[in-house]
């Protein structure tokens, strides 16, 4: 049993000769697709929610919107993503008569889910920007939305970039649950190799390495981005 090199040979054989890599590439593609599109949807919806939640609440409409948004955030942060996936795939979408694939559902759910997290991150980012920035924007005659978009949010984004990067990394790791709705991700791909081999240790180790490499690359990318965004507070 301890014959490790034999296991590795067998793994390589399945990986290359039996086209295991095709599966792995497909899984990698899906994993990235779900994480990236999920993040993009999450950033867009999350920013909207964050803005709604920082609008001054004298009037009724912002109050109602704020209520809806905080409920949304609490709901998506309070339940496991697996449950959300299953409920969307088997209950909500069929109820609405929409028939879509597991990957699409995963993108949708991961987007909605990360929107809840990103809205909180974004909100803390917006609140960390000095109130005077907004006031100055309003004082020169820009509207609330223009001041938000041109002055406050760019500064907020710089503040939250590390947190946003962590959210992306968390998304990548969380994609390992999409097998529940029949989508092929990295996990399923290596499971496939494992089940052809009746040996799971080597595929799982390789999978762990792929995840690590992915995440290292992303962390590096975040660092570079942070550096380029920091130019406005560098002293020359």
């Amino acid at each position, binding site marked *: 049993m301890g014959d490790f090199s034999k296991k590795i040979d067998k793994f390589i054989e399945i990986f290359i000769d039996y086209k295991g890599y095709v599966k792995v590439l497909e899984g990698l593609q899906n994993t990235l697709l779900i994480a990236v599109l999920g993040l993009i949807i999450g950033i867009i919806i999350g920013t909207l929610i964050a803005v709604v939640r920082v609008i001054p609440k*004298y009037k009724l409409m912002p109050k109602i919107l704020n209520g809806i948004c905080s409920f949304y955030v609490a709901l998506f942060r309070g339940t496991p993503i697996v449950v959300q996936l299953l409920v969307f795939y088997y209950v909500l979408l069929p109820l609405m008569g929409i028939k879509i694939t597991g990957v699409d559902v995963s993108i949708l759910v991961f987007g909605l889910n990360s929107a809840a997290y990103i809205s909180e991150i974004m909100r803390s980012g917006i609140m960390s920007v*000095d109130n*005077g*920035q907004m*006031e*100055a*924007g*309003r*004082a*020169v*005659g*820009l*509207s609330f939305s*223009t001041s938000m978009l*041109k*002055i406050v949010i*760019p*500064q907020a984004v*710089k503040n939250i970039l590390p947190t946003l990067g962590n959210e992306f990394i968390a998304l990548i790791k969380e994609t390992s649950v999409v097998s529940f709705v029949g989508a092929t991700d990295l996990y399923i791909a290596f499971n496939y190799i494992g089940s052809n081999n009746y040996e799971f240790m080597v595929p799982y180790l390789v999978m762990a390495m792929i995840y690590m490499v992915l995440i290292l690359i992303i962390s590096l990318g975040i660092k570079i981005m942070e550096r380029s965004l920091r*130019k*406005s*507070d*560098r*002293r*020359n």
Partner: protein
Amino acid sequence: MIDVINLEKHFGDNKVLNGINVTIEKGDIMVVIGPSGSGKSTFLRCLNCMEDPTGGQIIFHGVDIADMKVDINVHRRNMGMVFQHFNLFNNKTVIENIMLAPVHLQCKDLKKAKRHNRIIKFTNLFRGKDKKKAPVEITTTKAEIVKNARIKAEELLQRIGLLDKADVYPSTLSGGQKQRVAIVRSLAMNPEVILFDEPTSALDPEMVGEVLDLMKALANEGMTMIIVTHEMGFAREVANKVLFIDDGQILECAPPEEFFGNPKNPRLKEFLSKVL
């Protein structure tokens, strides 16, 4: 130019402004003084609705801008404001800070005009030959707006001697430089009046002079200014009206000679004896 009628402001049960009545004429240099917590900053911030007044009227060019239905952004363009903590946009360079609002607003107008013309062009298709409407004349382009704004911004920077700092970010400037940039930023909108909210309070002593000099220069050019400050010397030298506010009310309003030379209100006498 500005008529403040019975202005009131309260935060919850806390009444900060208690019926303020004052008129500001074109060319006035009005200095507002008072002990801390007296409501003088709130008064200033109510003038351009940074704080929404809870009662009373502010008539600016015949429009009550305290009314929530008025588009306040339009009027704010004519009312510059300078803050205690400068509030330069951290994510913009110095020159971008100055150009942002003029360029953005003019581009918005331009876009509006273009859209309007498109609609006219379309509806003209259905109009009779002699009934066609003429499109609005568009005299400028986006590039021209940017170019003009840049020329103007450079002029302004030249004036305060900071042209070489045009492309740096505000975090590299000293406090005095920041405040002077903030003042020319509001000038770039060609406002009719500028509100100063304790412009020198957050500065190191040796930088106060350069900011006050710039303000004096503006006063000499005939700019209308409303200034909340603790600089009594400046008030005496430059103002033509000095206002004393305490407990949310105007207790004295007089020209500086009378205000400092012959104060009538006992609270003002007490205040002056402490600060002078």
